[in-house]
C-alpha cells in the first residue's frame, strides 16, 4: 500500500508538488488572516509568517522528499546519468560491456551445460534412492555389468530394494507402416518402470507375467508416438513390427523419459520391450556380463545396509560359479551418470571461472582508470556541495548499469551459444538432450552480474570518495599524487590478468597439441575411399548361420559387381567407434603372471575381404580365404601385431594356437593362428587401444565349442566397401544392392569411413575448440588490460613526457620506456602464469593425449604469444607517448 502510493507519487511528482504548494499557501494565508484579525498590519503579518516559514523552497523540497520516496527517483536519475555517461564515452562503455558480456555469457552457457549434466536432478522421483549394481570378477580390470542369471538372482533374493530391474540395449528394425528404420530400444524388466517411479502417459507398462513369458508387447517413447503415430490416441493396442515380429503397443511414456543405459548414464530410447530372458541367456553364468541392473532402496534402508544385503546375495551367485571370484558393488545412479563427464566439465568450469576473473579484473581496472580521470569532476561537485554519499551512490550505480548491460549482452550470447552447443556438444555428455538455459542458471548469472558490479564499482568508488576536494582541484585534474597505491593496484590487476590468460593459453595449447597428436595417429587402416553400413538380419528370416552366410555371399557378389568397387567385407564391428566386443582368450604357451588380469582382446568376426576393404596391412601369414568358410575347415584366427608381441614374445605365432576362455587348459577348441595384421585402433584414436583377434563369421560358433549356443547366430553385421572413386557416390547403389538381396532390410549408419573417424574425433575437437576460444577471449581481455593501463599512464604523464622531450630525451627513448613498462607487466604476468601452470596443468592430464602436462613446446609457445601481445598492447600508447608535442602540452597547462 505504502509502496504503491510512493510509486504512484513518482509519476505524479508535479501534481504532488502543486498540492503541497497549495497546502503551504493555505497555511500562510490563515496565519496572515489571524494576525490581521489580531490587529497587525497585513504587510507585517506576511513578513512574520514568512520568517517563521523559513525558506519556502527548501521546505517544499523536504516535504516532497517525505512524500515521493526521493531515493527511488534519485536512483532513476542516477541511472539516467549513468546512461548519459556511457554515451559520452562509448569506447569505454563498449569495452566494459563486451568484457562483461563475454565473461558472463561464457559462464552462463557453460553453467547451463554443467547444470543439465551434473546438477539437475535425474528425472525420477527421489532419484537419490536409485542405485546401479555392478559385478566384478577378480583378475578383470574393469567393473562389469551383471550376467543374466545374476539379474534374476538379485531380483529374487535381495531384500534392501523395492525392486531390481535388469536392462540391456537392443536395436530392432521397425517395419510395417511407414519407412523401415532401426529403433534404439531397450529390453527392460517389468520392474523398471515402478523402480524409476515413472507412470506412462497413457496405457500401461509391462506386467511381471508378460516379462517372464516373453509376451510381445512394447512401450513406446513420446517422440516415436508423435513421429510415427502422429500422436494418435488410438495407438495403444496397435501393433508394431520389430524384426518382422508383431508387438502390441501397450503404453506411451511421457516426454523426455529416459532409462538407464548400457553406455553409462541415462539415455532416451525409442521403445522398450520386456527383458524376457531366453533359456540360453539364463544359462550363461559368469559370461555375457552385459546386463545392467538398477534398483531403488527401500525407505529407511541406507546404502551401507544395501551393500551388506547385496554381499549376502553375492554368496548365492558365487556358489554357482566356483571357478571365479566375484564381487558386487553399488553406486548411485546419479554418480554413475556423471562420472565420465566430470573431468571435461571441471575443466570447462575452471576455464570459465578464469575468464570471469579476468573480466572482473578488467572491469575493475577500467572503472579505476575512469574514476581517477574523473577526480576533478568529483572534486568540483563536492566543492559545490554534493554529498559524498550521493557521489558514491552514483559511481556504484554506474558500475551496476554497466554490469547489467553487460549481463544482458552476456545472456544473449549464452542463449546463442546454448542453442548452437546443443547440436555440437559431444554425445558422450550424458543428458545432453536436456540442455537449455534454465531459471537457476539465469539467477546465477544475474547474481554474478550484480556481484561483479558491486565489487568492481565499490573499489574505485571508495578510492575516489577518499579524494580530498582541494587535492584534486590543486593538481589540475592530473591526479599524479594519488598515483602510487592505485597504480600498484592496477598493475597488480593487469599482472593477474596476464597470469590467468597464460594459464588458459597453456591449457588450450596442451589440448591443441593433443588434438594434433590424435589427428596424426595412424588408425591402422586407410579410411579413404571406404563406405560402411550396418545391416541387421532378423532372426525370423535368418534363423541359422548358413542362411546369414548365404545372404552375405549374395550381397558381396552384388556389391562387388558395382563399378569401381575394389573389395567388399563384413565384420561384427568396425574399428574406431569403440563399440567392439571383447573376449577372454588364452594363448598357447603364454604364462600369466601372478595377479595379472585375464587376457582380453577385441574380437571381430569377419567375412569376405574385410582386411583388404579397410586396408589393414598383413604383417605375416595370410588373410582369411574362401577355404576357411567351407564346412569342417580347420579353425583359424588372425591376431593383431600387438597381441603377437605381448603374448608370443620372441616366438613365431604362426601355427600356434589360441583358445577362447580364461585358460588354455580348458576343453575349448584350438584355433590356429594363420596371420598377423597391423594394429587397428578400435577405440577413438585418443583412447587406449586393445589387442585384437579376428575370426571368420562362419567359424564363430565352432570356435566356442559347446558354448556355441550362447553366441547364436551372428546376424548383425557391418559392411565395408572399398571403391576407386568417391565413396559417397556408392552409398545409394549399395542400399539398392541390399534391397535387391532382401527388400525388407533396413540399411543404417551408411557413412564413409572418413566420416566415422571424424565423428570419433568430435568430442576432442569440441573440447579443444572451447578451450581455445576461451584462451582467445582471455588473451583479448589481457591485451585490453595492458593497453588500458598504459594508455592511461601515458595520458596521465603527458606533462612529464613533454618536459623530458623538451629537455632533450629522444623520441625513441620515450617510446622504449613505455614499451618497457608493457613488457615488464607482461613478463611478470607470464612468470606468475607459468608458476600457476606448473602446479595446475596436471589436473588436465586425463584430457590429454600423448602430451605431458608440462609440455615444453606448449609452455614456450604460450610465453611467446603473451609477450608478443604485451608488446602489441604497449605499442599504441608508446607511439602516442613518442608523438607528444612538448610545446602544445606545456602551453595547455
Amino acid at each position, binding site marked *: *500500500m505504502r509502496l504503491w502510493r510512493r510509486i504512484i507519487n513518482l509519476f505524479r511528482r508535479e501534481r504532488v508538488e502543486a*498540492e*503541497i504548494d*497549495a497546502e503551504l499557501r*493555505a497555511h500562510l494565508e*490563515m*496565519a496572515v488572516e489571524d494576525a490581521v484579525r489580531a490587529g497587525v498590519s497585513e504587510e507585517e503579518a506576511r513578513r512574520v509568517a514568512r520568517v517563521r516559514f523559513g525558506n519556502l523552497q527548501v521546505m517544499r523540497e*523536504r*516535504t516532497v522528499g*517525505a512524500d515521493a520516496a526521493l531515493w527511488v527517483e534519485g536512483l532513476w536519475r542516477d541511472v539516467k546519468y549513468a546512461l548519459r555517461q556511457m554515451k559520452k564515452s562509448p569506447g569505454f562503455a563498449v569495452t566494459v560491456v563486451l568484457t562483461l558480456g563475454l565473461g558472463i555469457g561464457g559462464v552462463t552457457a557453460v553453467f547451463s551445460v554443467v547444470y543439465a549434466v551434473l546438477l539437475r536432478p535425474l528425472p525420477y522421483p527421489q532419484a537419490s534412492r536409485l542405485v546401479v549394481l555392478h559385478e566384478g570378477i577378480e583378475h578383470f580390470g574393469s567393473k562389469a555389468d551383471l550376467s543374466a542369471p545374476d539379474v534374476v538372482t538379485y531380483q529374487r533374493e535381495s531384500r534392501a530394494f523395492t525392486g531390481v530391474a535388469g536392462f540391456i540395449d537392443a536395436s530392432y528394425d521397425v517395419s510395417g507402416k511407414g519407412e523401415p528404420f532401426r529403433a534404439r530400444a531397450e529390453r527392460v524388466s517389468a520392474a523398471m518402470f515402478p523402480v524409476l517411479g515413472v507412470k506412462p502417459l497413457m496405457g500401461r507398462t509391462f506386467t511381471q507375467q508378460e516379462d517372464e513369458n516373453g509376451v510381445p508387447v512394447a512401450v513406446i517413447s513420446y517422440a516415436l508416438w508423435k513421429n510415427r503415430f502422429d500422436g494418435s490416441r488410438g495407438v495403444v493396442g496397435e501393433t508394431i513390427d520389430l524384426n518382422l515380429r508383431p508387438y502390441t503397443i501397450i503404453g506411451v511414456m511421457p516426454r523426455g523419459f529416459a532409462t538407464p543405459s548400457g553406455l553409462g548414464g541415462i539415455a532416451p530410447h525409442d521403445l522398450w520391450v520386456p527383458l524376457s530372458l531366453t533359456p540360453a541367456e539364463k544359462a550363461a553364468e559368469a559370461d555375457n556380463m552385459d546386463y545392467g541392473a538398477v534398483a531403488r532402496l527401500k525407505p529407511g534402508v541406507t546404502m551401507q545396509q544395501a551393500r551388506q544385503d547385496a554381499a549376502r546375495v553375492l554368496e548365492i551367485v558365487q556358489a554357482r560359479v566356483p571357478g571365479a571370484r566375484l564381487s558386487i558393488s553399488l553406486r548411485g545412479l546419479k554418480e554413475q551418470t556423471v562420472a565420465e563427464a566430470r573431468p571435461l566439465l571441471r575443466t570447462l568450469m575452471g576455464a570459465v571461472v578464469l575468464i570471469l576473473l579476468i573480466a572482473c579484473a578488467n572491469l575493475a581496472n577500467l572503472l579505476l582508470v575512469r574514476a581517477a580521470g574523473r577526480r576533478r569532476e568529483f572534486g568540483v561537485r563536492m566543492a559545490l556541495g554534493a554529498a559524498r554519499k550521493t557521489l558514491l551512490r552514483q559511481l556504484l550505480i554506474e558500475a551496476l548499469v554497466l554490469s547489467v548491460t553487460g549481463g544482458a549482452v552476456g545472456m544473449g550470447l549464452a542463449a546463442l551459444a546454448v542453442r548452437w552447443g546443443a547440436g555440437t556438444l559431444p554425445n558422450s555428455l550424458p543428458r545432453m538432450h536436456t540442455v537449455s538455459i534454465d531459471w537457476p542458471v539465469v539467477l546465477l548469472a544475474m547474481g554474478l552480474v550484480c556481484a561483479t558490479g558491486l565489487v568492481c564499482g565499490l573499489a574505485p568508488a571508495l578510492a575516489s570518495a577518499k579524494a580530498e576536494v582541494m587535492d584534486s582541484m590543486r593538481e589540475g585534474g592530473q591526479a599524479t599524487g594519488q598515483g602510487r597505491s592505485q597504480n600498484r593496484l592496477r598493475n597488480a590487476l593487469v599482472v593477474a590478468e596476464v597470469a590467468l590468460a597464460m594459464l588458459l593459453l597453456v591449457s588450450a595449447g596442451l589440448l591443441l597439441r593433443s588434438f594434433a597428436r590424435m589427428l596424426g595417429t595412424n588408425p591402422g587402416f586407410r579410411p579413404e575411399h571406404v563406405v560402411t553400413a550396418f545391416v541387421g538380419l532378423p532372426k525370423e528370416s535368418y534363423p541359422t548361420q548358413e542362411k546369414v552366410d548365404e545372404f552375405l555371399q549374395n550381397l558381396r557378389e552384388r556389391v562387388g559387381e558395382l563399378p569401381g568397387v575394389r573389395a567388399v567385407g563384413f565384420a561384427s564391428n568396425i574399428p574406431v567407434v569403440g563399440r567392439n566386443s571383447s573376449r577372454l582368450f588364452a594363448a598357447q604357451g603364454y604364462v600369466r603372471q601372478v595377479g595379472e588380469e585375464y587376457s582380453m582382446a577385441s574380437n571381430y568376426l569377419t567375412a569376405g575381404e574385410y582386411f583388404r576393404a579397410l586396408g589393414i596391412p598383413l604383417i605375416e601369414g595370410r588373410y582369411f580365404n574362401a577355404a576357411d568358410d567351407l564346412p569342417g575347415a580347420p579353425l583359424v584366427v588372425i591376431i593383431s601385431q600387438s597381441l603377437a608381441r605381448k603374448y608370443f614374445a620372441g616366438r613365431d605365432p604362426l601355427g600356434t594356437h589360441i583358445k577362447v576362455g580364461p585358460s588354455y587348459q580348458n576343453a575349448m577348441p584350438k584355433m590356429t593362428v594363420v596371420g598377423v595384421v597391423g594394429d587397428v585402433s578400435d577405440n577413438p584414436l585418443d583412447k587406449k587401444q586393445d589387442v585384437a583377434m579376428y575370426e571368420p563369421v562362419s567359424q564363430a560358433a565352432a570356435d566356442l565349442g559347446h558354448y556355441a549356443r550362447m553366441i547364436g547366430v551372428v546376424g548383425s553385421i557391418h559392411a565395408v566397401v572399398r571403391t576407386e572413386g568417391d565413396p559417397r557416390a556408392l552409398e545409394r547403389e549399395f542400399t539398392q544392392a541390399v534391397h535387391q538381396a532382401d527388400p525388407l532390410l533396413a540399411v543404417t549408419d551408411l557413412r564413409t569411413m572418413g566420416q566415422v573417424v571424424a565423428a570419433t574425433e568430435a568430442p576432442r575437437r569440441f573440447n579443444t575448440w572451447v578451450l581455445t576460444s576461451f584462451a582467445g577471449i582471455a588473451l583479448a581481455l589481457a591485451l585490453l588490460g595492458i593497453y588500458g593501463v598504459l594508455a592511461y599512464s601515458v595520458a596521465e604523464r603527458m606533462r612529464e613526457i613533454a618536459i623530458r622531450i623538451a629537455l632533450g630525451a629522444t623520441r625513441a627513448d620515450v617510446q622504449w620506456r613505455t614499451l618497457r613498462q608493457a613488457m615488464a607487466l607482461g613478463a611478470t604476468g607470464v612468470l606468475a602464469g607459468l608458476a600457476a601452470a606448473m602446479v595446475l596443468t596436471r589436473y588436465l592430464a586425463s584430457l590429454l593425449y600423448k602430451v605431458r602436462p608440462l609440455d615444453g613446446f606448449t609452455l614456450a609457445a604460450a610465453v611467446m604469444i603473451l609477450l608478443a601481445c604485451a608488446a602489441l598492447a604497449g605499442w599504441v600508447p608508446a607511439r602516442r607517448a613518442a608523438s607528444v608535442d612538448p610545446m602544445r602540452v606545456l602551453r595547455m597547462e
Partner: protein
Amino acid sequence: MARNDLQGSLDLLVLKTLSQRGKLHGYGIVLHIQRASDDLLRVEEGSLYPALHRMENSGWIGSEWALTETGRRAKYYRLTAAGRRRLRQAEGDFEELVKGVQAVMRYS
C-alpha cells in the same frame, strides 16, 4: 528500548492532537499545540509538513481537502486505525522516557 528522539515527540504531539480534535489542518495543529501547551511548545512549520507527509505515507494519518470556516480550501488530516495504534505506542514510549529522565534527575 523505546525510540526516544525528537522526531518521535513531534509525531506524538501531532497524533495526540488529531486524536483529541478529530479533523484538523496543518495550521490548526500548530495553533492547537501552541494553545494547549500554554505557548511553551511552538511547532516549526519547516518540520511539521515533512512530518505530516511522512506519517501519511506510513498510513498513520489520512487526508482530504475541505473548506475552512473562512471558506478557504485547506488539507485536513485525521487519525487512521494504524495511527491510533502508533499513538498508543508513542505514548508508552514517551512515558518511559519521562520516567527515565526523572530517575536520572533524582539520582543522587
